[in-house]
């Protein structure tokens, strides 16, 4: 009897503690609802987007902070439904994946209610399309860095599982004092082979290949500069680099910030097996700036951009890049004898940069801006598509905005691509995804999903930079790499 009395007391005290918690955690539910004739103004804008079946839940909320509660019902045309209620629509990950799996190739209908000043409003339903084509990638890698001028604080290379919200650091610059890390590039999204650069006191080019790690000397006397923008040959022995003497100029007025230009730049191919740099005058012309190399998916062509060098700072807006390609023989390591110009800047009246051929060889995506190649600082920069079969080009109007779009990458199945965009506020770059069909038509892009996205992106003082898909998680021992970077151990390139 005594023990029963004590057990009652324990239960009551537990209830006394839990009850306020339970009451507080219960959000209000829609009642006395007013119907609105518009779709909800939500953040992120996921209305009408097309998503892959693997994607993490598209959590969202109202743009207007005056809304205190959101209630969302999601129904699939092929069955199942899920529900979320709270400060933001926080869908359960497992339920979400089940819903998408059930409705692959179908449509999800979102019914949204919002509470504002104690009153509930139901908005017009909107749809999200679940593509029949899976993403086929585990996740993405990217650099996070503040959109700064010359100095940088904390930054790093990170990876993110696209089916969940898990993000982890591959390498952060706190690992070695004063380090800057850039241009993490894997070979066809395979993390077994990747390269990235380290700038600063212990600069180097880090190459992970065939299970081993090498730090190449940051600079090479014959090149006159560092190895900068990389692209792996599909077979993995070669890697094309640009070598750039990059400078920046800063606007005093004119509502612009930064102009990035290269005092000189060239393209070369690096043989990772012999540590040799393969120069060729065709891609290292004296009065021309070659840049942004990219191999074709079959490895037979090397795409790059080239422009006649200008006088800086007076003619900074006269430098316009052409899109070119030259053949490459992987057996001999030789570059071809003739350069083809695929897109002429003079004819376009614009500058082409960042060519990225699709892995199926059908298309080539690039950015087009008024001048220059560092398009992240150009609000007019847009994504364009070149059909490699027909030679036709067209803008990807479905994904372009009135702010800079740039740094795009294809998924391995060439049905999806990601890119960075400054559409949110013109300064902080965010990651977007879109699907693209065999005709080169893309869909409305969607922002990289986050839990509580409004607060997450509002508080994030980093931009996303040099993103790429990853077929598996990157396995890097950051501590060991940090020690290697701090050491003097470097491989000399010949």
């Amino acid at each position: 009897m005594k023990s029963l009395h004590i057990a009652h007391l324990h239960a009551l005290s537990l209830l006394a503690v839990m009850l306020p918690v339970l009451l507080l955690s219960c959000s209000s539910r829609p009642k006395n609802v007013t119907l609105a004739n518009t779709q909800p103004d939500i953040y992120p804008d996921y209305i009408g987007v097309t998503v892959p079946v693997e994607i993490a839940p598209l959590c969202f909320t109202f743009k207007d902070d005056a809304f205190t509660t959101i209630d969302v019902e999601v129904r699939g045309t092929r069955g199942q439904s899920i529900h979320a209620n709270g400060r933001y629509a926080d869908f359960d990950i497992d339920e979400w994946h089940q819903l998408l799996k059930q409705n692959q190739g179908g449509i999800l209908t979102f019914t949204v209610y919002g509470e504002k000043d104690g009153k509930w409003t139901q908005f017009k339903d909107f749809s999200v399309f679940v593509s029949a084509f899976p993403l086929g990638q585990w996740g993405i890698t990217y650099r996070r860095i503040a959109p700064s001028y010359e100095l940088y604080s904390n930054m790093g290379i990170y990876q993110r599982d696209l089916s969940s919200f898990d993000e982890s650091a591959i390498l952060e610059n706190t690992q070695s004092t004063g380090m800057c890390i850039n241009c993490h590039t894997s070979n066809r999204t395979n993390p077994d082979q990747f390269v990235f650069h380290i700038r600063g006191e212990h600069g180097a080019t880090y190459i992970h290949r065939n299970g081993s790690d090498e730090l190449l000397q940051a600079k090479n006397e014959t090149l006159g500069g560092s190895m900068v923008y990389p692209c792996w040959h599909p077979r993995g022995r070669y890697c094309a680099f640009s070598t750039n003497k990059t400078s920046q100029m800063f606007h005093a007025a004119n509502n612009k910030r930064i102009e990035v230009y290269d005092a000189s730049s060239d393209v070369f191919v690096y043989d990772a097996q012999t540590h040799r740099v393969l120069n060729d005058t065709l891609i290292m012309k004296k009065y021309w700036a070659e840049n942004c190399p990219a191999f074709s998916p079959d490895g037979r062509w090397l795409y790059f951009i080239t422009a006649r060098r200008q006088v800086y700072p007076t003619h900074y807006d006269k430098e316009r890049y052409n899109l070119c390609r030259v053949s490459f023989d992987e057996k001999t390591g030789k570059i071809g004898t003739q350069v083809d110009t695929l897109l002429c800047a003079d004819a376009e009246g614009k500058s082409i940069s960042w060519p990225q051929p699709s892995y199926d060889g059908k298309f080539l995506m690039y950015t087009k801006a008024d001048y220059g190649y560092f398009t992240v600082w150009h609000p007019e920069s847009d994504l364009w598509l070149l059909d490699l079969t027909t030679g036709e080009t067209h803008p990807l109007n479905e994904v372009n905005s009135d702010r800079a779009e740039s740094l795009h990458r294809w998924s391995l199945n060439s049905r999806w691509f990601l890119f960075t965009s400054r559409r949110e506020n013109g300064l902080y770059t965010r990651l977007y995804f879109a699907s693209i069909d065999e005709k080169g038509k893309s869909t409305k892009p969607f922002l990289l999903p986050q839990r509580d996205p409004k607060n997450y992106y509002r508080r994030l003082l980093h931009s996303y930079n040099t993103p790429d898909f990853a077929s598996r998680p990157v396995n890097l021992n950051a501590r060991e790499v940090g020690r290697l970077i701090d050491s003097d151990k470097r491989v000399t390139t010949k």
Partner: protein
Amino acid sequence: MTSFTALSSLKYFHARYRSFSVRNHYLCREKRNAESVIKLHSMKKSRARTSHPLAHCYLAAFVFALLVYGFWSLLYPFVITGREQFSIFLWNSEFFQQYIIVPGGLAKYAGDFIVQFFYRYSLGALLLTLLLVAVQWTTWLLIRRLSAVSPEDRRTPSAAGFPFSFIPSLLLLFMLGNPLVSITFVTAVAMTLLLMVMLPRGFVRGVIYVAVAVPLGYWLLGPAVVMLPVYAAFVWIHEGTTARRSLIAAVLLLILLFFCMFLSSWITPYPTHRIFFGIDYHWDFASVPYGLLFWMLFTALLPFMAAKVSKYLSGLKMFWAVVCAEILLGVLLVPRGYQNDATREMEYDMLLGMNRWSDIIQRSQKQLTLSPISSTVTSLAQKQLGQIPTQQLMKEFSKHRLDHYRSTTLVISEVMFRIGMANISQRMAFEMMEHIPNYNKSARALKRLAETNIIIGEYDVALKYISLLDETLFYRNWAKMLRQLAEHPEEVESHPLYGNLRKMYQQTEDYFFI
């Protein structure tokens, strides 16, 4: 103060009477050999020589607090406001979570919590003073424990060692003249000293306590907890455990600490040397912080040394003589720690913020040579007093490369803001924020960035910064005001400050500054 002294005296004599009775009872109950009796007798005699009213300790601590507060609020207020611009404190749970995931996170959180009050230098000076007084008082408690040899010593302790308790705080006061010594270090050592005070009696209990406190304390406070096992060893020896046993336990506990540090180097993105010297204690990460290491070692050993030396110091005269000697040394030596370029820049920055143009010019005339920053600020002061035109100020500014302006303060951003060069002001503010050695963000820099973005017309970016400042204590009201402008851009033109600055910006011809 008189009645307080009288009351303290009454309490003291009452306690003495009680302790006498208890001591008699104690002697009758305990088995004492001849050595103990003699020891007790000699203690009784030395106690008569060395005991002081506790009121004098309170008085000395109060005087110390007044002097420290006066030092910062009257002589070096710009050091307080200067430090404030190196951090931001947001009142949300995610902000706290970011801190707690690395060793020393709680100490850094507490440090940044305190630094946010540096926005008002009088409040900042008060908090910093309280922190130093806390360090002093806990040091005294540690000395007192090692001075006590009997239960009545513990109940009515001798204050002979009290003057030595000021030394760690005085050293901290000196060290804080270097902006690279972070407030995190001060909060870390203050909380570690508290852990040391809480060391329980008894060897076994003490070992268990330290074995738990070391890993937990390391994760929350950082490597400052190294002082705990060192102090504990002295306590155990003093309270009767054999030296061999005490030292072995202390060494094992130190090994436990080093193991924790080594383990954390595998799971946190910091190199080993930063882990061992404290991730956020000292902001020159390339060098060994010898000063801080010396301070920790010295403070861990001080209670033992002070307890030994205090036996030879007796009487109120000696008490106050030592206190006055410390005050004198403090007055002579502490200001030397504040004679550096960074604090000079902070002074210019504060004068600039208060529009004290004549003071700026006077200050510059006292310096033999002017740094680029000092000369640019002086030029602005001259321009504001109508002594030179704006073109001459820009000429002065353009004489130096921009990397010469990579100041640890926002002073150049302020100068450029005043003359309508919003782009340059924006860049200087951004660079300053990215230049903060421990990668903190700066509320003051974000404020400037919000302002410049409004002037330039980038309202979305301005709103991003404003939403962060909404979550601070001292900037939220200002953020509310600026949000109105960002959400209603048509009101910017008619704003007395931003409207004029926008006109100046729009009239500025674009050029490149490298």
